[in-house]
């Protein structure tokens, strides 16, 4: 795999490879020494043009557990405030010698631009670009769902038959987009619930059902419900009259939470606006996977960094995932 830019172009096999590899990476955390020497000597630059807590820390932790060197850049307090653009910033970092760039940027397509422009040679991992995609979040969500459903027998399995309802600000959500593509690829049925103003115009072409009434969606007893954050920083129009009205109609409050099945998995990509899109009781309940999502994020990002950073440079590799041919047994024999 040369880059990870989106989940839309990720095949089922490539997605399962990442999820299975993350199972191995998660096992490392339970060992006496939770660290692998695999990426020793490789360096990873985290380029965060937008604020982030968990994604940045999670990528940092993942790189460190694989023994890579990490540089972290945040736009705040950098030369971006002096007007330096993406190209110059990226080339500056690349000139210091990095093997992979993890980028979060407010512009949709920023990661792809970086990967395809020829500005830098490093592998590019998209950590969220505008309202486009956030592939590692979707992968960690799929991993969390798979573990919650199949437990120790998760390896090699997809999410067929699972009904997942995603609620909230779909319009601005890169998490929702990445999840729609990935969950669909893995065989889950996805339903989106949002006020009509927060459903994207092209949603009819997505492989999902849509619904504007959360109560109806809850009555359908989904296996998992994923609440999205209301992204106040991207709300430049009046999408709904008032936050309280939003909470009343589309928030997972105590009453709605009580109507969910006892085994329903409750997810949220964080950061949570408690009392707005999710109540404290729902967020802290036994069925809540919010903290498992954070834990699993490190394993997923270890798997992704391993796949983009190990292996000889593949010439002619294409966008999305160009998986290297699996080593044949004969090849293994050769180095045995």
């Amino acid at each position, binding site marked *: 795999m040369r880059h990870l830019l989106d989940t839309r172009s990720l095949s089922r096999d490539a997605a399962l490879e990442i999820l299975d590899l993350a199972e*191995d990476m998660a096992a490392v955390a339970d060992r006496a020494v939770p660290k692998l020497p695999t990426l020793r000597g490789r360096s990873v630059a985290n380029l965060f043009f937008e604020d982030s807590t968990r994604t940045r820390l999670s990528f940092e932790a993942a790189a460190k557990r694989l023994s890579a060197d990490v540089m972290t850049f945040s736009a705040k307090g950098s030369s971006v405030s002096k007007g330096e653009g993406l190209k110059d910033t990226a080339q500056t970092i690349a000139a210091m010698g990095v093997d992979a760039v993890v980028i979060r940027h407010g512009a949709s397509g920023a990661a792809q631009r970086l990967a395809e422009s020829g500005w830098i040679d490093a592998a590019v991992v998209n950590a969220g670009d505008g309202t486009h995609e956030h592939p590692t979040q979707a992968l960690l969500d799929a991993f969390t769902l798979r573990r919650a459903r199949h437990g120790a027998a998760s390896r090699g399995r997809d999410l067929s038959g699972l009904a997942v309802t995603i609620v909230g600000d779909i319009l601005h959500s890169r998490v929702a987009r990445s999840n729609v593509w990935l969950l669909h690829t893995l065989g889950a049925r996805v339903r989106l619930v949002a006020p009509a103003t927060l459903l994207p115009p092209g949603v009819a072409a997505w492989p999902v059902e849509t619904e504007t009434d959360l109560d109806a969606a809850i009555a359908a007893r989904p296996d998992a419900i994923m609440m999205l954050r209301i992204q106040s920083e991207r709300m430049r129009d009046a999408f709904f009259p008032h936050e309280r009205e939003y909470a009343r109609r589309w928030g997972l409050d105590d009453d709605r939470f009580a109507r969910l099945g006892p085994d329903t998995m409750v997810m949220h990509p964080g950061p949570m606006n408690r009392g707005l899109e999710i109540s404290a009781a729902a967020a802290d309940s036994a069925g809540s996977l919010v903290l498992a999502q954070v834990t699993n994020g490190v394993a997923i990002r270890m798997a992704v960094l*391993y796949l983009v950073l*190990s*292996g*000889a440079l593949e010439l002619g590799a294409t966008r999305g995932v160009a998986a290297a041919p699996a080593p044949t047994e004969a090849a293994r024999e050769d*180095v045995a």
Partner: protein
Amino acid sequence: MRTRTVLQQADIQRALTRIAHEIVEGDPASELVLLGIPTRGAVLAERLAGLIAGIEGAEAAWGALDVTMYRDDLSLQPTRTPSPTVVPPGGVDDRVVVLVDDVLYSGRTIRAALDALNDLGRPRAVRLAALVDRGHRELPIRADYVGKNLPSSRSERINVRLVEIDGADEIAIQDGAEGEGF
């Protein structure tokens, strides 16, 4: 390209039985943890555990130790997909770990395995069992238990086939027309 079979099913069975006897001569079964290196080493570890159970009456703990993440050639080869590491419930601390692999060649796999083992715990001792030792060591590593010494040229390839994976037990030497891959 010519292939000749050097060990057949009965030979492999005999070699493994002898290794099993040698292992329990050195250490009691209750203290042993057999860790096979995937893919075929893991199969051999399970077989050896079964043979030891037949000899001692008590089964030796066995598992799999994946060394992919510890290899020194990761940046020279296409991306490798690791196999799961399975450590038996008792762990490896203060046990005698026997690493099991099918072919011992450069020794680099075993070097990686020793590093991987180091991160799992602190065994009392580590020993090495290999079904085939083909020579050409690049590191100061030797096997404690060897099924068969097969002096070979670097251009040749040793193919180990096992029933569990390949449908038959057989070890063959294949002439390498194109010389050494790695």
